[in-house]
């Protein structure tokens, strides 16, 4: 399926490469900044640190979710034991969540 999907995409691009006109000009190829000349050099400078933070949070919490899945699937076989497991697990996660909350990582603007 992946191959097919990718194939379609590639195909489309190639076709347009073959068929599309090529009339480059400086103005066209200039990064778009509402028509002004690009200000302040390279765009790929440091981003706001917030984005890093969110990324890290995501990693951590996503792993937590990943841990959840096996428990969830096997849950009914495990019974109450699993429930308390889950509770303690979530409790720990919430500690981290609380910390993040207090640190104001989730406060934007």
């Amino acid at each position, binding site marked *: 399926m992946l191959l097919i999907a990718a194939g379609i995409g590639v195909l489309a691009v190639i076709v347009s490469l073959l068929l599309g006109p090529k009339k480059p000009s400086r103005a066209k190829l200039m990064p778009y900044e509402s028509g002004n000349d690009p200000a302040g050099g390279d765009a790929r400078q*440091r981003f706001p*640190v917030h984005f*890093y933070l969110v*990324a*890290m949070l995501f*990693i*951590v919490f*996503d*792993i937590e979710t*990943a*841990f959840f899945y*096996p428990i969830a699937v096997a849950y009914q076989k495990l019974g109450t034991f699993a429930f308390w497991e889950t509770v303690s697990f979530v409790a720990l996660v919430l500690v981290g969540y609380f910390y993040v909350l207090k640190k104001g990582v989730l406060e934007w603007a």
Partner: protein
Amino acid sequence: MVSTNSYIILSGLLFAIGMFGVLTRRTAVMVFLSVELMLNAANLSLVAFARAWGDLTAQTAVFIVMTLAAAEVAIGLAIIVTIFRKRETTNVDALAAMKG
């Protein structure tokens, strides 16, 4: 059905590549990536062995290792970003506030 050996060889290769990266690369991020590569090599061989021995304990280990990798990513990136935002470079050699 692929034989266990080939898995092990592959993981060995991955590990070797990672090791090489750690030894040769100079930017923190690349070293870091190499380490992650090594971790995944370990995972691969763990899973392969688990299949060879036909028990699941090693797969739990794999889970742990994945978490660990994630945690390392989080902390490592945090440290690297902190340093990078203070000075432009993350070149390990350039970090010489203390004589090695």
